[in-house]
């Protein structure tokens, strides 16, 4: 269990840094989506299924979609 959590947290941190570093905005949004997804799995491990469901449906799905639409409307790369 602790190994799984360690791997998940490591991937989550890497994804968070990647979301910050990436210049391609679509990649950055997908990295942020991965952060939300892993956060929801961690919430599940912490026995908070209510928060996990909210995080997965809003953080991973809807927010990502809204960001993707916004990128489509504006520019694809960070200036």
């Amino acid at each position, binding site marked *: 269990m602790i190994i799984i959590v360690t791997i998940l947290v490591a991937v989550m941190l890497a994804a968070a840094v990647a979301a910050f570093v990436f210049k391609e905005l679509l990649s950055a949004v997908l990295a942020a989506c991965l952060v939300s997804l892993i956060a929801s799995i961690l919430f599940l491990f912490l026995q908070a299924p209510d928060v996990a469901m909210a995080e997965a449906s809003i953080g991973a*799905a809807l927010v990502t979609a809204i960001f993707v639409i916004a990128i489509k409307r504006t520019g694809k790369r960070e200036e």
Partner: protein
Amino acid sequence: MRTTVSIVLLAVVILGFGLSLLDVPFAERKSQIGDYYIVNGRDQTGATNIVTSVVLDYRGFDTLGEITVLFVAALGLGAVMAAAGGRRERPSTTEPPSLVLRTGTNVLFPLLILFGVYIFVHGHLTPGGGFQGGAIIASAFLLVYLCCRERRINLARKTAADSLGGIVFVGLGLVGLAVGSRYFLSDFLPKGSLDTLFSAGMIPIIYIAIGIKVGAELAGVIDDLLEETE
């Protein structure tokens, strides 16, 4: 010079925060209220899911505030989008969606709606509730927008569902106030027996209202954003 001063100031601030946190007993229980909810929540509210008993009963007024925040945010987005230039009709140059996406949407859309409704109808029994169920319903509409560009939600019905959810929530709270309790959103309906669908007084009704409202609002947000791109 300025850089040095900034670094020194930052160091002072961080040191101050660190020193002030030294006395905070992390991971120790300071508040008794959580234990009180865990022990008495089921009997007092009739909701098996303790999170729901806190969200809709003990802290129901906060939830009304959350709903209001979401409503104002959706309203603001709609206003900004309307001010940004209104509807621009452009000939659709996007290629038609693939067969996989269309078939998947046709199969998944009713299932997603059903799942969302299940989540908020059973909010007092199983994990989840109005917000989660509403978000799942909105993601079903997002899938439809991805697949079939020409389809739109009916804006009049969306507004009606949105308003109905809010009216039911506030109306039930006011009825609870009028029926003889001393506070807003007090539960005046019979509790029923624990662990059954028709239990927990007015919690399921409010969660259904919240689910419909959140679903309509989030679907409206996606609709507002997509309307401009095409």
